[in-house]
């Protein structure tokens, strides 16, 4: 285990740098509600809008793509790699396998067997993977191993045993008074405990590609939705972002200013989307 990995692991369970009381969270929430209500006034006909990191990025960097119809959903390997990759890292943390490449096959087999036995789809892809031929199945495993390996190598996971929650349900928050706008946040890992009253103390977010200039707002957004959706409205201490493709590990310590910048990014994204929906995507205009 290298010095860098040990330091990164210690950072996940470190005490919060900033205090963040309930009043601060309330101010952030009020600003968000007011901003979204204002920006969403331009959304046509109550058409629903789910805000998430993909929408924030698209609104900032590629607004011309907003308003284009989504592709019909069909299972692909890329849709499996995150949930399978997280199960792989969990299995390795528990000491059951020597590395992601050894864990991938048994983890998939176990998931499919459980689905066949109970009929319950824990990760949704079990029936699709069960029907794949050997070649396609190997691609699913290979993609998940490649996704999981840098996450596995980034931290000293066995040292975090008992404090880690992999995946889990997405955080969701609906804006009161604006039925059409919903916020969805997702982190790959939640780190609990560490003696902090704030729980989870850290969130880990994994993204492909490289961080854009708005990476701080994007990590703060993950914290924002986690805070608003938590029963006790308690903010995590920090969000650590990994961009393995580009070798970046960046973090934000969560304070009121950070959450406020995330709120402003959300409001901007809603306004840009409303504008695009009102005028139509650029390709249609052209």
């Amino acid at each position, binding site marked *: 285990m*290298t*010095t*860098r990995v040990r330091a990164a692991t210690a950072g996940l369970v470190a005490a919060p740098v900033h205090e963040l009381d309930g009043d601060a969270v309330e101010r952030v929430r009020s600003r968000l509600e007011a901003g979204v209500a204002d920006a969403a006034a331009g959304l046509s006909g109550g058409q629903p809008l789910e805000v998430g990191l993909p929408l924030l990025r698209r609104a900032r*960097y*590629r607004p011309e793509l907003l308003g284009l119809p989504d592709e019909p959903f069909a299972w*692909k*390997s*890329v849709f499996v790699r995150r949930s399978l990759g997280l199960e792989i890292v969990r299995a390795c943390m528990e000491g059951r*396998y*020597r*590395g*992601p*490449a*050894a*864990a*991938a*096959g048994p983890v998939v087999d176990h998931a499919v067997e459980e689905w066949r036995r109970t009929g319950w789809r824990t990760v949704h892809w079990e029936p699709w993977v069960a029907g*794949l*031929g*050997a*070649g*396609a*199945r*190997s*691609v*699913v*495993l*290979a*993609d998940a*191993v*490649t996704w999981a*390996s*840098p996450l*596995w*190598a980034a931290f000293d996971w066995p040292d975090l045993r008992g404090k880690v929650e992999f995946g889990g349900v997405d955080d969701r928050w609906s804006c009161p008074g604006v039925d059409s706008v919903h916020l969805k946040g997702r982190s790959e890992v939640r780190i609990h405990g560490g003696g902090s009253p704030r729980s989870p103390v850290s969130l880990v977010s994994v993204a*492909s*590609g*490289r961080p*854009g*200039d708005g990476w701080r707002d994007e990590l703060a957004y993950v914290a924002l939705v986690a805070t608003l959706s938590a029963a006790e409205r308690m903010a995590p201490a920090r969000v650590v972002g990994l961009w393995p*493709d*580009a*070798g970046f590990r960046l973090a934000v310590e969560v304070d009121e200013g950070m959450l406020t910048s995330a709120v402003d990014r959300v409001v901007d994204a809603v306004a840009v989307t409303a504008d695009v929906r009102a005028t139509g995507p650029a390709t249609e205009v052209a």
Partner: protein
Amino acid sequence: MWPRGPEWRPLSGAALLERLRVTGRARPAADPAFAAGLRGLLESGLPDLAEWAGPADDGRLVVTKDQLTRVLACPGHRTMSRFGERTFTVPMACGALVDALFRQIVTVGSMGDPLVDALDGLAADGRQAALVSWIGDLAPSDLAELRAEVERQAEGLVRRWPPLDPVWLPRTQEPMRAVLAGGTIELSSRVDLAIGRPAEDHASVAIVEVKSGARRPTHRDDLRFYALVETLRSPAPPFAVATYYTRTGEVDVESVTHDVLVEAARRCLTGIRALAGAPSEADTGGWCSACSVLPRASTTAGPTVAVDAAVVPFPRGQAA
């Protein structure tokens, strides 16, 4: 080039693994100052990037090994994207199918019917739908030729490729990106296989490229581009880069030294400037036969290309 004697036999199993791991050679210590100097070398040649009207995606120029090879082969290829869609060929299809089988062997260690498994894998990949469709439309004789070659190479892979210890974190089709010039330039690659847990104190990663065709000198340039990108994105450079030729079982391993990386950076800088539309001396000649009949735009004097001026002294001959 690369003559092989009658006694030559391809490496397999543990011997092949030893060759890829460069067993017996100490893993070089990481040198952050050198890596910073390498970045400086690249960025010192790109200060006037905004003045050039280059092919940009989302406000940035994404540079791949294939783009570098093409643009450095002929100035006419700067505008190659205007020349229409890529045409599939049987050798290209063979390469994609063998790549899929290589992934399968590395990941699960076995395969069934090679062509069936490989097509199945390409279809699941999601990025190869056009190629899968093209293969499906092949004439029976072409398909038979493709099947025979894929089966021949698959048999060699199964027989020779060694199992990899999961502790080494073998990962296939790993995307790698390095950002330069404040994000304006992005070096992008996807390597067939990376082995080794990334470390910050010494080189710990080996990169393997798989080729189903004949050995070519330009393959070394591809390897060096991978080494450069990995050095720029990671705490330490790779200790070795290798091309594995599935048709013959040959393996070409290159240790990654400072000299190799500096040479790769200089080549990369020349290619970036060409792709970004910087006028250069390369416009004055050396067009390939396909492009030589095209009308040439008049060139204007541009910023001086200082690709040979390193910003920091690089020790010669020292391993990276």
